[in-house]
């Protein structure tokens, strides 16, 4: 992967927008001493290159289930991509990666009750052909969580068309 070329202005923009994405281009331009056109163009480029995305982050339990679990999965090596893609489609799964380690798929999910978690892991995931073993561990306390820096898996997104 080639490293993206970011200059100081890009980094300042990312920092400002990571605090509040709803600041107007005009205000950002004023604060950083550049033109609105520059701000608009930079934001568009960063979005198109998949380096930033604008979204809403909500606290646990506001719009979704309040607890998190880590699901480690051992799947057939030769079909790991297909199996991983199938699991990623299941709605409560909010993150999934193929890994090298004690599991070859690692998934994260949000859940409300142990029944819904068991249904997800034992009924849905374990029933997928190619899945051999599932281990779940529940997050009981969060010590650190940076939701601002992520892997953006879908490039682009709605482009900022603010006048």
């Amino acid at each position, binding site marked *: *992967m080639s490293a*993206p070329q970011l200059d100081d202005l890009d980094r300042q923009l*990312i920092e400002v*927008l*990571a605090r*509040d*994405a*709803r600041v107007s281009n005009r205000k950002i331009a004023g604060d950083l001493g550049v033109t609105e056109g520059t701000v608009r163009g930079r934001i568009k480029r*960063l979005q198109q290159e*998949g*380096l*930033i*995305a*604008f*979204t*809403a*982050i*909500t*606290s*646990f339990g*506001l*719009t*979704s289930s309040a607890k998190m679990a*880590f699901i480690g999965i051992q799947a057939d090596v030769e079909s790991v991509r297909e199996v*991983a893609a199938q699991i*990623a489609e299941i709605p409560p799964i*909010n*993150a*999934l*990666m*193929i*890994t*090298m*380690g*004690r*599991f070859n798929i*690692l998934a*994260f999910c*949000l859940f409300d009750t142990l029944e819904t978690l068991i249904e997800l892991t034992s009924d849905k995931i374990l029933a997928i052909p190619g899945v051999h073993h599932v*281990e*779940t*561990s*529940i*997050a*009981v306390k*969060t*010590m*650190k*969580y*940076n*939701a*601002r*820096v*992520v*892997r953006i*898996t879908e490039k682009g*997104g*709605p482009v*900022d068309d*603010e006048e």
Partner: protein
Amino acid sequence: MGDNFSVDDIDLAIVEQLRINGRATNQQIANNLGLTAATVSTRIRRMEDADKLRVVAVSDFSAHGYNVLMELAIEVDGRPASEVAAELAEFPEVFAAHLVTGRYDIDMLVVLRDFSDLPDLLLDKFSKVRGIRSMMPAIAVDVLKYQFDVAPLEARSQQ
């Protein structure tokens, strides 16, 4: 936390619009949902003021020069796991640290600029933290989905 903050269907619909495009104007959201821009603005502010919502730019690991993502499970021995986790959370490479049930006691997401940073991080930094019995890394070779848009939110004043 024990607060009585509640949201209705309109709030949820606004949040859904913001998840799709956090930079959508109040007017655009209002048009999509059949509301007024003033209503949209008021409702967003109410959720933000209660520290239940942040509308932000998230940035890719690569924008910060991080090219390796790793999950690290840690087994603790002879020290409270919360103390070990708190100490590990101080490292900037640690993006998430949770106390978990099961075979291991702490589960972390760790990022690196390069694989060559791994020995230094594991052998010189993390291993100096007292109470770690074993570390089990899993290196992400492909990330299919990554939607951590639900998270503990800090108060505005801490930003």
